[in-house]
């Protein structure tokens, strides 16, 4: 991992302000994807802004129907929520089909949406990859899986 500074944000406004100050900053919640990529030096943030204290871990019913799911709700909590199990079984099943118990205890709802690609060429820093380094090319075209 490359060196980075660490800050724990207490509110969404604080987190946004901290991120605005450093273009190389990244938010971290569960960290199950980001830290993996940082160890491989695919992600090299100079600052991590811990957003776990933002209080966004509720699941609330909406007046017009549906549920509003907090960005920081863990996969385990979301899959186990009674309303999700009862009314949105597919969501519960999808969460339970991904990762392991340990990962689901850490991974968050928003973090899921922000996961980077699983393409092996993205993970191989010796190969060109437009997602890792825009403009460098795509090794998947004509790659081993084609």
């Amino acid at each position, binding site marked *: *991992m490359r060196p980075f500074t660490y800050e724990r944000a207490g509110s969404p406004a604080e987190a946004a302000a901290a991120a605005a100050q450093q273009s190389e900053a990244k938010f971290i919640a569960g960290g199950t994807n980001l830290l993996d990529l940082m160890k491989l030096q695919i992600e090299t943030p100079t600052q991590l802004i811990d957003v776990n204290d933002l209080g966004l871990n509720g699941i609330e019913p909406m007046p017009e129907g549906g549920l509003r799911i907090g960005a920081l709700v863990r996969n385990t909590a979301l899959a186990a929520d009674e309303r999700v199990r009862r009314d949105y079984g597919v969501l519960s099943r999808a969460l339970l089909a991904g990762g392991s118990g340990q990962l689901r205890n850490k991974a968050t709802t928003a973090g899921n949406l922000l996961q980077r690609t699983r393409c092996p060429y993205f993970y191989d820093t010796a190969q060109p990859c437009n997602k890792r380094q825009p403009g460098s090319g795509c090794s998947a075209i004509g790659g081993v899986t084609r």
Partner: protein
Amino acid sequence: MNRFRQTKPQALSASEGPDVMDTPCDLPILRRALNGAATTVAAMTPGLTGAERAPAVSATNGSGPSTMVRVSLQVNGALRRLELDTRTTLLDALREHLHLTGSKKGCDHGQCGACTVMVGGRRIYACLTLAVMHEGDAITTIEGLGQPGNLHPMQAAFVKHDGYQCGYCTPGQICASVAMLEEIKAGVPSHVTADLMAMPEITADEFRERMSGNICRCGAYSNILDAITEVAGK
């Protein structure tokens, strides 16, 4: 030409400070310097090459913001204060700084489960989280679960059923098993739970699925299953 140099831990300040400074290990560390390259002797961050080491920034000097942080962890019931490089994973903090070497480093990428510990009673991969993110958290490692002569029922069951061969994955397997049974008690469903609205069943299929985040290269799975089944039935 290969040269070997021993490195020693940095001198600790006697003034008030963390229980353990950023000295990875009490033991001398062998460092291999290749091709006669200049060798610098310093306290090393385990698993990092010299080029990756953090700049020498302390909490009190240097112009830029610090990459050293103070962290307090409740480990196995005891408050432990540390001063760490921000990059230190919870696993490295436990193993290299607190010398709790029960938790193992297997893949270091959250795939094998050897590093499984419990934080606030929930099992997580200690290799895939930063120590600094766990300020004040209650962490239970295999050392806290039970000790020789005072084994946790799951530890005793693993011994009784021979739930290991080489033993490397065992601390992670045991921590994961204990927390897994709590997840079942709490009604958390799994991928193989047939009825999402019913309490999860205590079956071999459920245990296999729920323990899929812990890999045993020796293949002691059937005995691990026997151990878990015994404890779950009590």
